[in-house]
């Protein structure tokens, strides 16, 4: 994402007993969080048998939810990238008070409760403008509604990644490109975007994985309609409601696996020389 070489973390020398004790206390406090995550994963794995996993994947409802989740998350990831790349570039090159106003506005999806995002979308699509759109493409309580419900928070994540990508770029390269005969559009296409490839991969993957777990806005705006607007978190909700905890856990494990793969890709994108030679 950046052009700087990543520094190796420094090794601390713990010479005295008090130094060692201090680090042990810190490790103990931090270790509680690690323990909690490991504990949750172990609890999930222990609660499920292979038969439950087979039962989950032979269920037509859950197979539908898997397909819709993969499709809607892919679309949300694409839309997030499509919006976050130009917006992040404009903001990263913007100066003055508008930048701060936009900063605050674009952080709202992070702090809004998920249910409120769903409610706000519902109200928006009940307005005359929203109803006009609904007459062309049905959005609420339909598959486009699932994508739109996942989009605000996913895009906010993608925007953060893209902003940090563009802000870490050396602006001198763009200036030099201008003197070499480029228009602003050519600079963006030939100089900026190639450097942003890894940031774009990370932004897409984060948006994708964030939308995989989105439930509140989807429930309010797209509804919980079996085999219609049912995504994986909705299936977990249904199975818990029906008392099929093992099936719910089997779906949860699938979501954990998909998210872990996504996080692995993000990590890979951050490693020098993995995605594009020459851009760290």
């Amino acid at each position, binding site marked *: 994402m950046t052009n700087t070489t990543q520094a190796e973390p420094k090794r601390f020398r713990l010479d005295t007993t008090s130094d060692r004790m201090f680090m042990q206390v810190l490790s103990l406090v931090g270790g509680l969080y690690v323990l909690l995550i490991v504990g949750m994963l172990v609890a999930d794995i222990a609660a499920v048998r292979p038969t439950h996993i087979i039962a989950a994947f032979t269920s037509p409802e859950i197979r539908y939810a898997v397909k819709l989740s993969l499709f809607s998350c892919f679309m949300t990831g694409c839309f997030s990238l499509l919006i976050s790349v130009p917006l992040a570039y404009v903001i990263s090159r913007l100066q003055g008070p508008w930048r701060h106003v936009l900063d605050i506005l674009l952080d709202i999806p992070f702090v809004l409760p998920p249910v409120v995002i769903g409610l706000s979308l519902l109200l928006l699509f009940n307005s005359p403008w929203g109803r006009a759109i609904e007459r062309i493409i049905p959005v609420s309580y339909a598959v486009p509604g699932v994508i739109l419900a996942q989009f605000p928070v996913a895009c906010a994540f993608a925007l953060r990644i893209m902003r940090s990508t563009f802000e870490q770029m050396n602006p001198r390269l763009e*200036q*030099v490109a201008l003197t*070499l005969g480029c228009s602003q559009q050519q600079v963006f296409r030939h100089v900026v975007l190639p450097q942003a490839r890894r940031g774009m991969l990370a932004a897409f993957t984060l948006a994708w994985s964030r939308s995989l777990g989105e439930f509140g806005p989807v429930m309010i705006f797209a509804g919980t309609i079996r085999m219609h607007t049912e995504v994986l978190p909705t299936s977990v909700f249904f199975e818990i409601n029906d008392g099929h905890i093992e099936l719910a856990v089997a779906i949860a494990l699938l979501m954990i696996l998909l998210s872990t793969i996504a996080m692995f890709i993000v990590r890979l994108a951050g490693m020098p020389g993995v995605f594009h*030679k*020459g851009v760290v």
Partner: protein
Amino acid sequence: MIALQDVSITVGAFTLRHIALEIPTGCYCALMGRSGAGKTTLLEAICGLNSVTAGRILLMGQDVTDVPPAQRGIGFVPQDGALFPTMSVRENLSFPLRMRKWPTAQIAQRVDELAALLGIAHLLNRHTQGLSGGETKRVSLGRALAARPRLLCLDEPLSALDDTSRANLCDLLCIVKAQTGVTAIHITHSADEMQQVADMCLLLEAGGIKPLSSNTALTTQSGLDTLEQHVKA
């Protein structure tokens, strides 16, 4: 000829006022001055990267004050080289020609010409990451020269190099000057460097810009040392 007529530039809180200079065509000019005097700001304004608040910039008689950087025909070599990290050396050299839509055969010919001139033929297929400081400066110089600019602007091209690389690049600049006859502005803090490559020298100070080429103090080593101490102070 490049001429600045009563030019004023404001960048943030920094202002340069009433700058006037004339550099004849084919002349290699060293621009000296203390750190923070505004040398880079001035060079960037000539390249069109900083806007001018008053005055005019004339390049070969054409008023380029409001002309976008892409259409000024100026080659710019920044202090850090600023090579494009996603491109190979060959792609960096051919970049300005591709942007100007030169035919492929002519691009290849021009890249080979530049590589031979700058001694970087063996680097053409290398990636820019991992090039040494001297190699980076050579490639950056080649990229700036590729489209045959009307003016070459070099911002401390010999800084941050070891003595050998500095001497080699200094010799190379003399060769480039002799072979291309390009008009150049070269920012430097080194009086030796100035004496070796420059036909004329300008000193940028708070009071404005003044020529030093006819200054008798520059003909003696003690005079050069005094100047160097002055601009490095």
